């Protein structure tokens, strides 16, 4: 599936929820249920410094596709990370570079991507794209 198709799926899933509480409960579930990162990568080298919650990201190439794993110490942040990983992981680096994040707005989580939110998510997306740029350079 392409990033666009996955994002459309996510938007579809979220459209079933009537209110913010259901959306957040779903995100919290996502955050709880996913093993996001291997313990060996949950270290300061992989830390993206958000002001409040910590976010770790690790990237590795497999068969020309970039796979991300990530984690956070805050559960809501972790839920959003799970959504981002689903949308961006296991894709070609160039597709990740080209992808936009408008779907976050569409699923009613826009506030989490405000640069002033200080939860590290804006930095996380930037980091995903930086990894993609780095690996794309290697492919070229």
């Amino acid at each position, binding site marked *: 599936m392409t990033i666009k198709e996955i994002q459309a799926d996510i938007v579809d899933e979220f459209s079933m929820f009537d209110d*913010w509480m259901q959306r*957040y*409960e779903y995100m919290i579930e996502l955050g709880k249920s996913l093993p996001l990162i291997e313990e060996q990568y949950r270290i300061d080298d992989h830390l993206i410094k958000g002001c*409040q*919650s910590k976010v770790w990201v690790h990237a590795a190439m497999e068969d020309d596709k970039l796979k991300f794993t990530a984690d956070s110490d805050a559960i*809501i*942040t972790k839920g959003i990370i799970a959504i981002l990983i689903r949308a961006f992981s296991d894709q070609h680096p160039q597709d990740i570079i080209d992808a936009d994040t408008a779907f976050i707005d569409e699923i009613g989580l826009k506030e989490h991507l405000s640069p002033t939110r200080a*939860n590290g998510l804006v930095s996380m997306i930037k980091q995903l794209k930086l990894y993609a740029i780095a690996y794309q350079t290697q492919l070229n």
Partner: protein
Amino acid sequence: MQTAMLDVQKIREDFPILKREVNGKPLVYFDNAATSQTPKQVMDVIVDYYSRYNANIHRGVHTLSQEATDAYEQARVKVQEHFNAAKPYEIIFTSGTTHSINMVAHGFGSLLKKGDEVIVSALEHHSNIVPWQMLCEQTGATLKVIPMNDRGELRMDAYEELLSANTKLVFCNHISNALGTINPIETIIKKAHAVGAAVLVDGAQACPHVKPDMQALDVDFYVASAHKMCGPTGMGMLYGKEEWLEKLPPYQGGGEMIETVTFEKTTYAGLPHKFEAGTPNVCGGIAFGAAIDYMNAIGFGTIAHYEHELLEYGTKKLLEIEGLKIYGTAKNKTSVISFNIEGIHPYDIGTIVDKLGIAVRTGHHCAQPIMDYYQIPGTVRASFAFYNTKQEIDALVAAVKKAKMMLT
């Protein structure tokens, strides 16, 4: 101090913002330690200034400039009287506490030398740690820290051991922003003076709750921000004893702070202008005066009494939530409750309660050393003002319970 009954419903009428909704819920504003809300009496003064007499001050001979100058200088006298400073020119208007602290730290740059010591408390806001670190790096002086105990109180025994003939400056907040601890500044000042050290007290968190008396405290420097006491942002003050302000070099060069200028030499203006280079925040100063008038009309005794009730009620109600722990349990504290729920990140709680219309602060509150002491990433901090109510505390408790349910 007078402690009349406080009519909270009448007071809330003064604050238009308290009527708004957030995420479809009535706003509950519990982030007062970060910034307080502004009563319409202060807003009216701001509108009146820009409607009638907006002008540059101290220089113009025209009527508007004269009126603005008079109002600005009257505000200085209001601040002087409020803090009981000996002279109006011991009050320097600044952009806020951080600016004020940096002015003193900069001034001490020329007074400190290698081997000198500066003492700060473990309860400090980052804005109170960083300028002193920079100052020590620059001068070769050493920075020492008064440690705290588990309740978030400064250890006065350790403080006495840190003091010596090498101590040149002691820096401490009057009230901790992260925990609400009221520090024994009278004792801190006395003991510092006994070894010949100057004391700078950060009153940013204290001034919304108490009325500090500069002369009774015998403090050398005291700083505060208007926006935490119902005034505008970008406005604050530095109180300094005349002898100290004379001793410190000016912080910035510019207009207003000079007496004569030739290309060979400039002589500086007298106090307070020596420290007020450039066009000041005229409206901010006047509004600061209005905010002080507003709070004094209610009365600080009345405010303290009412806020203490809120603190006791909030503490009792929040502690009924299983797994909730309050950080900062000093005997003497203001209406700040910093807490966590076991196993839940404070950011998650803050996010959910915001959805329910409640404004609290989450994070390390710019006081990472305190968070490191407790080995936590941060806390949720609810800080109450005299316009808050017990019903709002009930809404907070219900929201925290809901957040807990969702997050565990």
